[in-house]
């Protein structure tokens, strides 16, 4: 008999996020409920949570970049990014983001995943450039459109990273696939796996690139 009770924690996360409670609160509560329903004593749950938090500090290190980005913004970096795009003839939001998508996919495929990212490139450069291009196409844009353009810049970074990185042989996910398969006696080389990431990478470029061109058409409409 499978014990389904620990799954209640997942339901709690879904409901909590949907009702827009503070996500930190939702996650902590879900962890405690799941642990208790999984027959762990409270102190054990607390210790597991604390250990997991302490072991994953590396994901929060990225914010040490903020002083540099903030300092450059104080001296007009975002304004400069906009001015640069405003001066390029034929620059559109869609074309700009397609170039960024290709750049992100190729670099990720070469294992250079941390060269770009939301803090490193999207906030200081790509998002203001995309906005400036949108204003060129459309004239002044309303807040809703500005949100959509900025969100699309972040989305393009994610799509480029996710569907580029697995082409690189030594990336964690390829090693995880190899290891999981090996534990069942199936031997695969990283090369065999990364080759099969290429069709998906091409599809991602076509699919997301098409969406970016459609965004251009919408932006170009009522000028």
């Amino acid at each position, binding site marked *: 008999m499978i*014990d*389904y009770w*620990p*799954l209640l924690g*997942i339901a709690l*996360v879904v409901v909590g996020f949907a009702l*827009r409670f503070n*996500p*930190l609160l939702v*996650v902590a509560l879900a*962890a405690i409920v*799941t642990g208790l329903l999984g027959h*762990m004593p409270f102190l054990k749950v*607390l210790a597991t949570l604390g*250990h997991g*938090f*302490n*072991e*994953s*500090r*590396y994901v929060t*290190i990225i914010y040490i970049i903020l*002083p*540099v*980005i*903030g300092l*450059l*913004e*104080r*001296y*007009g970096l975002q*304004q400069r990014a906009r001015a640069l795009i405003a001066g390029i003839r034929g620059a559109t939001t869609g074309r700009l983001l397609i170039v960024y998508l290709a750049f992100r996919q190729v670099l990720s495929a070469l294992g*250079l995943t*941390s*060269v770009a990212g939301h*803090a490193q490139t*999207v*906030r200081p450069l790509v998002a203001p450039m995309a906005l400036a291009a949108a204003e060129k196409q459309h004239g002044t844009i309303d807040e809703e459109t500005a*949100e959509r353009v*900025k*969100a699309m810049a972040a*989305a393009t970074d*994610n799509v480029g990273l*996710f*569907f580029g990185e697995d082409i690189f042989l030594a990336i*964690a996910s390829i090693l*995880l*696939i*190899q290891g*999981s*398969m090996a534990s*069942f006696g199936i031997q695969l080389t990283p090369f065999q*796996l990364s*080759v*099969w*990431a290429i*069709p*998906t990478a091409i*599809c991602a470029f076509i*699919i997301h690139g098409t969406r970016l061109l459609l965004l251009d058409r919408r932006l170009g409409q009522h000028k």
Partner: protein
Amino acid sequence: MINLHWLYVLAGAVFASFAIGSARDATNPKRLGNAAFWGLLAISFWFGDSLGDIGNGILVLALVAIAGAHLLGRGSGVSTDADEREDFSRRYGNKLFLPALVIPFTAFVGTLLFNYTPLKGMGFIDPKAVTLVLLGLGVILGLIACHVWLRPPLTAPLEEGRRLMDSIGWAAVLPQMLAALGAVFAAAGVGTTIGALAAAIIPHGSVFLAVLLYAFGMVIFTMIMGNAFAAFPVMIAAIGIPILIHADGGNAAVIGAVGMLSGFCGTLMTPMAANFNIVPAALLELKNQYAVIRAQVPTALAMLAANIAILYIAGFRL
């Protein structure tokens, strides 16, 4: 050897400076909440390894209490306004991009140097930490470049960094909290339960339906865990290996690689993948915290269809 611990000391110092800056920010009505939040994070980075698991657990609950009680706020002070920034932008011109590019450039050159020269074997840098070490190095080089060229007040980087940090707020620690939740899920046996559930509803006789269940299983489980890495070992053990590879004779490399990529479609659609989906919304100061996910859903669904087609055709028909 330079390892993660060096970076933790640096990050702790940055967060401690944010805490001190917050405490002194008279324009923020909730300044003490901010100071406590970033201060606790500094403690975590500096002393996390000596606090013990339960001590860290209490620290986590304290962070959650501050965020949950809405004790975090934002200051309203600005260093330079939009007009001054336009002036600076004109005065410094495109050279302003150079310090911003120091960080990616350090990562790029550093990764190449580390991987393709004897540097790797010399043991200066812990290979596990090399990406973050290069980030830290890039930040330091970038700051030096800015100071030499722009001559800002000495505390300006910390003030400006804190301004951005406050706009991100509690979302900054959400990815770390979700990783901790993943640890509790694993300890409570959530993965095995989901695997058993998936295996129980497996359809027999139809390869296409099995492929569909495998891909959707990856997507849904990834959305729950916020991470395809947690979903993959469970789904490959429940469906991939026994059904698709052994019973139906599918190509193992395709099923492994494209199964993982199907999971990535789930990553694009879930707030649980906070560092990709929620933090950028905060970083770009978007009104809707789910705006990035909304922008990604059509791409993710089309990519899922493409992955299912690749799994079926390349896995079984080629």
